């Protein structure tokens, strides 16, 4: 069998063409329905992989809409690796530009949160930072600390209440009208075996993003304050310690000063 025969067989699976020449059955020289079993398996298994990663999105748009959207995505972006646990990282971006879903403005952000959850699920294990590790550090050095993110950490944000909408469609809270329609952010992290989604207070997204990018505590707090004057440092520090979003104290400002000297 030449590579070309497999090319023809594969091409028809992501399309609606009749079986390629030379594909037969005992009772037919063009077994459309039999060949269609393979096409159906490909579509159903890949759609199933996406539905397993994006269950809240499926619940929001309904099974039929989700299947159609997944089908369009699979056609344009089939997987390029047998590691399906990572398939669909770019499905939220696809959904954001998917014309029939345009009216559901928050859909893509809910999907970004779901993608972050599965990434966290499979991320490397690491022990979270022991809150006591900070206790021994004098207040004069605290601001210069740099923290190392937990391998599972993502910070998601949306101009819509995407975290609340996700929670309602993931069985975390009852589905009801969203009382306060405004932007939301959350940490997604798996300090041990359970993936946590932790809603962030105002400017928490800015604070944690700066920390995750290697800025010092003082720099991250200043940036958060600038983003929103309502930023509450002690509340955000409590989240930092409670959630296990960071694993260790990295280089602090004193190290940097020494390096630059």
């Amino acid at each position, binding site marked *: *069998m*030449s*590579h070309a*025969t*497999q*090319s023809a*067989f*594969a091409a028809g*699976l*992501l399309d609606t063409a009749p*079986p390629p020449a*030379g*594909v*037969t*059955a*005992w*009772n*037919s020289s063009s*077994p*459309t*329905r*039999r*060949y269609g*079993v*393979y096409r159906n*398996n*490909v579509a159903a*298994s*890949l759609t199933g*992989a996406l539905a397993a990663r994006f269950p809240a999105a499926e619940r929001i748009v309904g099974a039929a809409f989700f299947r159609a959207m997944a089908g369009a995505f699979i056609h344009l972006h*089939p*997987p*390029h*690796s*047998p*590691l*399906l*646990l990572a398939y669909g990282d770019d499905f939220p971006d696809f959904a954001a530009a998917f014309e029939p879903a345009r009216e559901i403005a928050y859909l893509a952000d809910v999907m970004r949160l779901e993608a972050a959850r599965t990434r*966290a*699920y*499979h*991320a*490397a*294990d690491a022990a979270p930072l022991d809150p006591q590790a900070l206790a021994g550090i004098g207040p004069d050095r605290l601001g210069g600390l740099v923290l190392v993110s937990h*391998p*599972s950490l993502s910070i998601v944000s949306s101009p819509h209440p995407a975290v609340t909408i996700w929670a309602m469609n993931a069985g975390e809270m009852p589905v009801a009208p969203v009382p306060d329609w405004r932007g939301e952010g959350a940490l997604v992290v*798996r300090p041990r*075996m359970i993936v946590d989604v932790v809603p962030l207070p105002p400017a928490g997204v800015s604070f944690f993003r700066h920390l995750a990018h290697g800025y010092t505590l003082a720099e991250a707090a200043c940036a958060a304050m600038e983003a929103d004057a309502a930023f509450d440092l002690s509340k955000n520090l409590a989240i930092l310690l409670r959630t296990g979003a960071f694993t260790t104290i990295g280089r602090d400002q004193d190290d940097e000063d020494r390096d630059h000297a």
Partner: protein
Amino acid sequence: MIPSALPRRAGAGFKPEHFAAIIAEPQPIGFFEVHAENYMGAGGPPHAQLGRLREDFALSIHGVGLSIGSMQPLDRAHLARLKTLCERYQPESFSEHLAWSTHDSVFLNDLLPLPYTQETLRRVAGHIDEVQDALGRQMLLENPATYVLFAESTIEETAFLAEIARRTGCGLLLDVNNVFVAATNHNLNPSDYIARFPLEAVREIHLSGHSETVDERGAPLLIDSHGTPVRDPVWALYAAVIDRIGPVASLIEWDNDVPAWPVLRDEAAAAQRMLDAAARKTAA
């Protein structure tokens, strides 16, 4: 080369939703089998569960993504991931399929059929040599459930598998449900297929359910769906196989509409009773 060496007992495909029930009490299960690709993340619950299971049970790692039947070179990165996984968990057996699933760079996530010719035989044997060299262990190759045939095929599937095993030293994984499904789909007698199968190379058996439909001419079309109990004619074929070759590691696969653990465990127990009967007969 480490030989494939599962216990000659009944096993079950491991599903994460069964983990708590499985570790809650001793289980009458000879081994568990997992799909390799589900354990290729860096960490998290999949590895924690598999590590825990491995403490108490023999393990079969079953690949579904290597595309051994592909007419293009094997994916070296994927082979390296399989090697890492086998080194980490030291399974009693590693198996894959006589099928392909990747073409060019697209992964189609289904076990696709190939024609059986001298050319494909050479190619598949070369891939199996490469896998066995990389892993340092004997692999098992599984017969596929197929829905179509190829005009260009010149070798019977059973002869193809026998020659692959002879050339490479690999063992065979005889999926009895696949035999029944494929034979029915190609209007053949499944017992004739078994009679021609190189049973001496079989190191594991798979049992599972299938669903039934028809083609556009009304002829039966069976689908390897892994979503129901093992069907009676498949049990009958299985009994005939182990009657001939004696007890062999036998796995119940249930991947869709997965039932509660006791249902799967009872299916495995049914296979174990048949293995026990075969063992008594062998001893007699």
